[in-house]
């Protein structure tokens, strides 16, 4: 009898329905938090993981292009998984529906040395991250679709040799027989096409009279990678900006550092399939 009385005393203020409500609320709040915050966070992680994987993949593809161009290996193929977007080839003869494709012109005071070279590109268009990663002219560049900036993830192999005052420029022209595009798992097959070698030299001129050489970069207004290229031209190659503002989609002109020999190599890389 005493035990029973005690038990009753211990259960004072205990209600089954309140207890149920409390536990139920906790469970609902838990599920709610996961749905509202956890799940979007997971999705975001997935998107950025896809993007990062594709950035790495583009660098792998850039290495393939390097092997083709600089080591004259005739053929390369790489299997990769393209997640969260599509990989497409815009070959060098492709004209966008509006605006002009990006082009590089090299000129001196006597006129054009290389007239409006269009590289074409291999581009990853992310569906959900809103970014484009492009392999163009031997460089990997990335931009956000809604913001004006762009960044170079891997530089092309252009170089300036200060000792001999030689500028070596490698232009890589991406071609394909048809428009190609791929999502999911695919194999990128590429082969080396024609190669052109041009050398412009002013060795016999006294050093104070070296004629200036200019590079003109015209970005594609809808795919503006000019900030990435601007950084590369100025920081890595030591060129100086002579006209234009990077990032507004208009033509930019750069002057080379003191150059006596200019070597321009043009490689054609043919994308067989994606």
């Amino acid at each position: 009898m005493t035990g029973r009385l005690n038990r009753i005393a211990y259960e004072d203020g205990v209600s089954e329905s309140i207890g149920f409500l409390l536990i139920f609320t906790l469970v609902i709040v838990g599920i709610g938090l996961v749905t509202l915050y956890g799940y979007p966070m997971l999705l975001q992680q997935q998107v950025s993981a896809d993007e990062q994987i594709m950035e790495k993949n583009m660098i792998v593809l850039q290495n393939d292009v390097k092997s083709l161009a600089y080591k004259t290996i005739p053929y390369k193929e790489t299997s990769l998984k393209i997640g969260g977007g599509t990989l497409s080839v815009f070959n060098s003869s492709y004209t966008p529906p509006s605006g002009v494709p990006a082009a590089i012109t090299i000129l001196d005071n006597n006129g054009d040395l290389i007239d409006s070279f269009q590289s074409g590109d291999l581009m990853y268009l992310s569906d959900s991250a809103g970014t484009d990663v492009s392999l163009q002219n031997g460089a990997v560049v990335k931009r956000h679709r809604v913001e004006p900036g762009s960044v170079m993830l891997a530089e092309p192999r252009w170089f300036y040799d200060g000792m001999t005052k030689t500028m070596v420029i490698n232009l890589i022209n991406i071609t394909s027989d048809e428009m190609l595009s791929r999502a999911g798992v695919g194999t990128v097959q590429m082969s080396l096409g024609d190669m052109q070698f041009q050398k412009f030299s002013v060795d016999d001129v006294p050093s104070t009279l070296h004629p200036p050489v200019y590079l003109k970069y015209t970005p594609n207004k809808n795919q503006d990678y000019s900030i990435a290229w601007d950084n590369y031209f100025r920081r890595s190659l030591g060129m100086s900006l002579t006209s234009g503002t990077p990032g507004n989609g208009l033509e930019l002109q750069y002057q080379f550092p003191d150059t006596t020999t200019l070597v321009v190599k043009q490689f054609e890389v043919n994308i067989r399939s994606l």
Partner: protein
Amino acid sequence: MAGLRDDAQWIVLMGFIVSFSLFFVAIVINQSTVVGQTTAEAVIEFPKNDIRGMRDMIIQSEFLVDEGVFNNKTNVQNDIKTLSLHRQNSVVSFSSRNPTGSDPHTYIEIHYSNGVTAYNETWRSN
């Protein structure tokens, strides 16, 4: 409480340590693709054979004479420069100093650069 045995608490602690270390290992693995890529690239890209070949050719060419067409020293040396630009994507320049009365050696200054690797040497004949 008196009878509570806590000898096995280390199992729980080990569990914590293992899971935290897994977490760090995951971070490291996540970075490995890029590192492997760049390291492999650095090894492959080092142009050891290019430099050796170029150096041998330059030294050989130094002892040619400026006569005829095919074995002409100037032609051969110009060809070396053109070929290395064309085939190896590298800038090569070199100059030599002939033996003088007090110094019986020939010196050749060799400069090689392919944008990633630069090599400079002053070669001296024996």
